[in-house]
């Protein structure tokens, strides 16, 4: 049995390896965990390293790779890298969905035949409320990008991050994503986590490590407990959910994660629907 198979089967750790491709972003969202923006240091994982990590992950028994940031599509090689990664393991890539202009869309075409899902953030059914959190024109760009990607045969998910669930707004948002061709199964709703810029702005819910599903997450700064863990507050990296600085061989942070996961109190589980 591989290193991950048994702990995954027991629900001790998640089976997806997350890779922070970069920390910079074209947006400055009000609740961003990593304080990403156009002016922050890129802190990229280089594509060759990401590909090597995916191979290592497969060998250890991981069953998927997640790519997040920052905005992954600011990494010039991203579409081609996603295809390469998908030849190793199924890929989920998180994006703000605002960069899909014609040239990038054309480079995305090969993803139709690859095991890649593109998850785009969309928080509200109305542009005003959405763009208040995510920046001007965000809503318009996203509702334009989703059909463009789907038309090219690419599977799209929508992720909604909210401060407080508003049933009416959520209903309208669900109607919108269905209209855009995204099924309910491909719509994720989760709370704002009170870390990073959200903590500075006093938004979101406090999440202890017990509330976060353990999913090994690799960044340029080291390995973390969850993709919600490598947060930045007022320019400083949070280390409370850091596992190891050493990320390769991948077995090293994985072993650290298993040690921590093994020490979790019995019955500890996620309770905040953070995913």
């Amino acid at each position, binding site marked *: 049995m591989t290193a991950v198979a048994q702990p995954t089967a027991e629900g001790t750790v998640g089976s997806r390896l997350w890779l922070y491709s970069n920390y910079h972003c074209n947006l400055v969202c009000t609740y961003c965990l990593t304080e990403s923006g156009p002016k922050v240091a890129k802190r990229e994982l280089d594509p060759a390293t990401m590909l090597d990590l995916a191979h290592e992950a497969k060998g250890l028994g991981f069953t998927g790779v997640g790519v997040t940031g920052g905005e992954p599509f600011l990494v010039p090689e991203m579409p081609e890298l996603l295809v390469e990664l998908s030849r190793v393991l199924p890929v989920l890539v998180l994006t703000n969905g605002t960069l899909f202009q014609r040239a990038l869309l054309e480079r995305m075409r090969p993803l139709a035949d690859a095991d890649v899902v593109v998850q785009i953030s969309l928080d509200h059914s109305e542009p005003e409320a959405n763009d208040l959190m995510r920046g001007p024109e965000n809503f318009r760009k996203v509702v334009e990008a989703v059909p463009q990607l789907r038309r090219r045969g690419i599977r799209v998910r929508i992720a909604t991050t909210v401060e407080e669930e508003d049933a009416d707004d959520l209903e309208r948002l669900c109607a919108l994503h269905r209209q855009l061709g995204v099924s309910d199964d491909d719509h994720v709703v989760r709370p704002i986590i009170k870390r990073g810029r959200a903590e500075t702005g006093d938004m979101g819910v406090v999440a202890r490590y017990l509330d976060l599903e353990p999913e090994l997450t690799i960044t340029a700064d080291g390995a973390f407990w969850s993709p919600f863990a490598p947060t930045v507050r007022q320019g400083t990296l949070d280390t*409370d959910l*850091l*596992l*190891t600085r050493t990320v390769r061989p991948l077995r090293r942070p994985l072993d650290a994660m298993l*040690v921590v996961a093994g020490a979790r109190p019995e019955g500890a589980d996620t309770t905040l629907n953070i995913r």
Partner: protein
Amino acid sequence: MTVAVPVALATPAARAAQPVAPRVTLIDSASAPLLARGLFASGDPGPIVASLAHVPELLGPTLPFLGAVLGPSWVSLRETEMVILRTSAVLGCRYCTETHSVVALDSGLSLDEVRGLRGELPLTDSFPDDAERALLAWCDAVALGVDADIEQARRALAVDDARVVHLTLLAATTVMLNRYATALALPTSPDVRERLVRAGL
């Protein structure tokens, strides 16, 4: 018997100087990485752990190693503290010298012996025993790393190989910590500083 003479310290260990700012952020309990949390559970673990916690995977192998070499062992506590304090004073490590001055007093060394180890009194006055002076000469030689001095000090050190190995690793590990603490300007704890002032050190 070959006579090995401990070095005269050019600058006696600095008296409790003004607090210095460490050159790295010291991790606190709120920022303690997952693997380090247990070390912060019962309060401030001290600046060595609080700095090492930046690289949590180093804690696992490093702390047991330090405990095995510097902690209680078949070498007496007196000898252990003589080696650590003397080496730290020879290398001018403020943090280790201050911290282990207090540990040495708590381990039963007299104030004059501590002053002697710190270079503030002649070692011949504080340590009349030839064997103990030979041990201190060995510490000095190991700390300074001059082969001819090491050769001379070894001839004077009338102990078996196992003891030489342990004492040498103790001195060498102290050298490593001296460099670490000095480079990062680790701060002496307020408790230790207060004890030093009360002791007149």
